[in-house]
């Protein structure tokens, strides 16, 4: 069984990227759009499009009834949620099933399991994955939190069980601070995620963010597609991602792959997923969380492996076996993704929506561009500020870095009031610490003189 029509419940570059694979698979696409995206390219690209609501996402892209109705009337058989919005909403996945629509992602049960960070942490610890010292599951009271903190030692980090994208996580240096942080995080978690549960872990100072891409089908095949390093972050928002993670010893790399497969099996995962790890200064790796969605940075894995991850997601959702085996997964060269956001780094990364009077993407050897925009398009102020992803491949990391810089230098984006992160990205690529791969997740914040890397920034959209 395969699909003949898929509704894409997302917008911008990822909606377009999903539609591209659908077109190659001969599957019709249905776009859904808010009033703000009326003229967007992903809308024109789809075979059909349904206007589902006004600009605010909670009344359009995050509003299940509108999307389900659109899918039913268009006769779509499946819904691809992309990243963000409803992509990790188990209830939405259930609603899809209730209406005879295939949700392209893991089962609602698995989504709930991996969505509860405290629970999946305990589960995978039991499965033999290394985790940081911390609470066994959620901590119910400030007193319990302090108790745990005394046991594992300060500084600790308080995390919302239902949190994500770097939101609802905050460090605490001592008992007094912990009481305050516990209160704040619990409140935020209740407010933002509708679930106040938090858990504690020992804080790792300036870790590296390493993640493993994995695929699992409904026939028992689970395989990993290598690791990615996403340590170049600003306030937990990824700016640059690369694969493979530089300076990672082969034995560690292999171990990470095994952990991903073991973990995916343990939770009964199907589809494409990512397992996040922290790598501390001593080279110790610990499991962080599982992301049950296609990620913004998935193209670096695609360039390294030649595997179309969205294609495999769709195959798996259609009940087909994966198109590849583990020994067919070859990792060659280095791939780097640079996120070009319509933001002004010189003004606190304020989003700069507006019309693109000039847009000329880079090209030539080893360059891939994923974008939802073109010349004359308007970047609406209502959503995240991702303008384009410039992804490059080269035989070596050194060449990949110069190629990324070459591509960014070629990228011509202009518009009244529109600023981009291109200059910042080029500056980052030129940093000796990055070139030598000595950078940690604290690097960018230190560079941009923001000394609180763990600080949550409620004005920023959650990362994907």
């Amino acid at each position: 069984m395969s699909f003949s029509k898929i509704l894409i419940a997302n917008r911008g570059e990822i909606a377009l990227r999903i539609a591209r694979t659908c077109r190659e698979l001969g599957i019709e696409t249905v776009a859904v759009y808010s009033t703000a995206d009326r003229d967007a390219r992903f809308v024109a690209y789809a075979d059909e499009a349904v206007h589902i609501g006004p600009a605010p996402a909670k009344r359009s892209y995050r509003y299940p009834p509108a999307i389900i109705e659109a899918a039913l009337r268009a006769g779509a058989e499946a819904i691809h949620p992309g990243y963000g919005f409803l992509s990790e909403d188990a209830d939405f996945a259930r609603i899809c099933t209730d209406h005879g629509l295939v949700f392209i992602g893991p089962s609602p049960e698995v989504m709930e399991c991996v969505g509860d960070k405290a629970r999946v942490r305990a589960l995978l610890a039991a499965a033999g994955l290394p985790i940081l010292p911390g609470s066994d599951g959620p901590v119910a009271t400030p007193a319990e939190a302090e108790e745990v903190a005394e046991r594992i030692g300060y500084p600790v980090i308080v995390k919302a069980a239902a949190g994500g994208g770097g939101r609802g996580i905050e460090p605490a240096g001592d008992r007094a601070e912990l009481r305050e942080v516990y209160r704040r995080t619990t409140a935020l978690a209740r407010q933002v995620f509708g679930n106040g549960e938090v858990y504690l872990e020992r804080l790792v100072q300036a870790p590296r963010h390493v993640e493993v891409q994995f695929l699992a089908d409904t026939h028992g095949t689970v395989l990993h597609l290598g690791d990615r390093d996403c340590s170049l972050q600003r306030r937990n928002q990824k700016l640059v991602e690369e694969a493979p993670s530089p300076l990672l010893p082969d034995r560690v790399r292999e171990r990470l792959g095994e952990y991903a497969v073991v973990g995916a099996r343990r939770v009964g995962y199907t589809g494409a997923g990512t397992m996040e790890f922290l790598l501390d200064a001593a080279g110790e790796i610990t499991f962080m969380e599982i992301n049950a969605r296609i990620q913004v940075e998935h193209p670096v894995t695609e360039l390294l492996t030649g595997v179309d991850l969205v294609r495999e997601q769709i195959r798996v959702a259609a009940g087909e076996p994966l198109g590849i085996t583990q020994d067919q997964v070859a990792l060659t060269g280095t791939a780097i993704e640079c996120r070009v956001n319509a933001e002004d780094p010189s003004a606190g990364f304020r989003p700069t929506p507006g019309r693109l009077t000039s847009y000329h993407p880079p090209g030539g050897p080893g360059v891939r561009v994923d974008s939802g925009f073109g010349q004359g398009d308007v970047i609406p102020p209502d959503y995240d500020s991702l303008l384009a992803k410039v992804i490059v491949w080269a035989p070596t990391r050194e060449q990949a870095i110069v190629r990324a810089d070459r591509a960014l230098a070629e990228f011509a984006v202009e518009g009244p009031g529109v600023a981009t992160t291109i200059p910042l990205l080029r500056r980052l690529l030129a940093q000796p610490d990055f070139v030598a791969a000595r950078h940690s997740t604290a690097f960018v914040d230190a560079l941009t003189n923001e000394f609180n890397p763990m600080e949550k920034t409620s004005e920023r959209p959650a990362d994907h």
Partner: protein
Amino acid sequence: MTEHTDERHTVLRLLREEAGNIVKTVPGPLASLSLRVGEWALDISWAHGTAPAAPLPPVMATEEETEADDTGLHEITAPLVGTFYVAPEPGAPPYIQVGEHVRAGQTVGIVEAMKLMNPVKSDLAGEVVEVVTGDATPVEYGQALVRIRAEEP
């Protein structure tokens, strides 16, 4: 680029039309006129300092006509994606009839989404001119359902 050009066209047309309107409305013969919208500007001065109030050329007339279609008319649109029904249930009389008067807040139909019936209310008082969308028709967000001529206050 094209959108950009369009934008310029619109602003320029605006200036032009406005100039025409001013000549029409401002009493007395004009010697000169200066219009400025941000970085956009139009300055005109008339020969023998006289601007006879003349009828506006067809170009603008047509544009006014196209807008004239729904002058005083108000559209009630679909609040969400779903299926539009003119009556509470099959066979029942419709909420409203053409020619009928509706109060602000009065239900004019329902949009059903995921088995949920969402009443569509008129946001002003007036006379029903047309029920644009037929019964049991799938509608998108913002799609016109009913046209109402607003009451003169």
